[in-house]
């Protein structure tokens, strides 16, 4: 691999903003709060406090592709995801919730939060369909904005993470 510094990497680096230049924790928090008060219940509160996620967690996420490209990931304990599903469905919740109900509801919440995060970023951007399962890995710790909250005392995290690994530092000559 060539080690000549043509400046190309530095210039392309300037057009690749990291998420912390574009959005902050309180903004993500307020997007999530709006989603919870409108869809889960107007008295719902998300306390901006860290909590320890249990061993058995579930994540849902949507991808954003645009001037910034990355993923908006929601992660919480499986029990909490089930409780959230029940709260979202309200009177329409079936007596027994199955995996599909939970994946569907938790995925939709990622769609709602992700869509609004996307709209707060420079656009135009495309939004993927939601996916549910084990969270995609953080590719670049410097391109990450994460908010940890407690919902009804249970931990939930919202992570806005860049898709691309960090640019290698150009070598000095």
């Amino acid at each position, binding site marked *: 691999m060539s080690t000549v510094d043509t400046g190309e990497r530095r210039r392309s680096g300037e057009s690749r903003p990291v998420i912390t230049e574009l959005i902050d924790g309180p*903004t993500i928090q*307020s*997007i999530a709060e*709006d989603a919870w*008060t*409108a869809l889960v219940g*107007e*008295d719902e509160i998300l306390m901006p406090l860290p909590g320890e996620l249990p061993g058995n967690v579930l994540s849902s996420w949507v991808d954003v592709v645009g001037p910034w490209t990355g993923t908006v990931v929601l992660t919480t304990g499986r029990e909490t995801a089930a409780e959230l599903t029940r709260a979202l469905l309200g009177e329409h919740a079936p007596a027994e919730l199955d995996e599909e109900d939970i994946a569907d509801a938790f995925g939709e919440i990622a769609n709602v939060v992700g869509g*609004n995060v996307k*709209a*707060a970023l420079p656009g135009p951007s495309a939004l993927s369909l939601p996916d549910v399962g084990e969270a995609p890995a953080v590719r670049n710790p410097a391109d990450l904005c994460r908010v940890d909250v407690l919902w009804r005392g249970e931990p939930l995290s919202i992570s806005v993470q860049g898709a691309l690994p960090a640019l290698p530092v150009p070598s000095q000559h």
Partner: protein
Amino acid sequence: MTLTATSFDWVRALVHKESAIVLQPGKEYLVEARLLPIARQMGIPDVSQFVESVRSRPNLDSNRRIVEALTTNETSWFRDGDPFTALTSTVLPALLAARGPNERLQIWSAACSSGQEPYTIAMLLEDALPNAAGRVSITATDLSREMVERTKAGRFSQLEVNRGLPAPMLVRHFTRAGTEWEVAAPLRRMVTASECNLATALPRMGPFDVVYLRNVLIYFDLSTKQAILRRVRDLMRPDGWLFLGAAETTLGVDDSWERVVVGRSSAYRPLKGA
């Protein structure tokens, strides 16, 4: 939670009487959450005690604060529709015919809250008139400084712009600002916002061609309602138009107004010689 059933029922009755809004059973948590800050401001540690103190010593200001705390999420754009469509269909053409070409029309939004009402008016005028900003001034007033600041800023959340604002108007008259939507600069320039307490002597304003005094008289007793209507009338043109809230009327309060049907709502005009 301390709210007793009796207290909750009293609050429900008050809110229904003053705003026609029904608080369903199960909303006790909402009442508790919304009234606790007010109770604390008054040095009362819990909501039931606060409610009982207001019940035992009726206090219009407390009533108003209770009702507002429980109904502020009712603020929407084009609230009740007709009083705003009436502006472009009936009122504006009549005023333009009656006034000279260089005369500025003056409109007053007399309980502007977070700004939805004055900006609803601004959008309608912007769409109806070439050079609306040159022809119309909108004065927006509210008792609360916080509401006046919100009106000046002209910024609204996603949830707020979802409430009764036609999407074509959203895209034409707003730009995104982070997670919020901001009213376009020309419309913000049309609106001047300031604090004003309707229950006291009013500053020199107007004279207004149109006044929107909606859902505010309900908070006052009869003699104060009459005083407010007198003060408002004094700031209006003799051929001006007054719009009240959907459940409100001057009937039985002040007989110096003529009720005029406009679409499916009413407007009130100063009676000549009254």
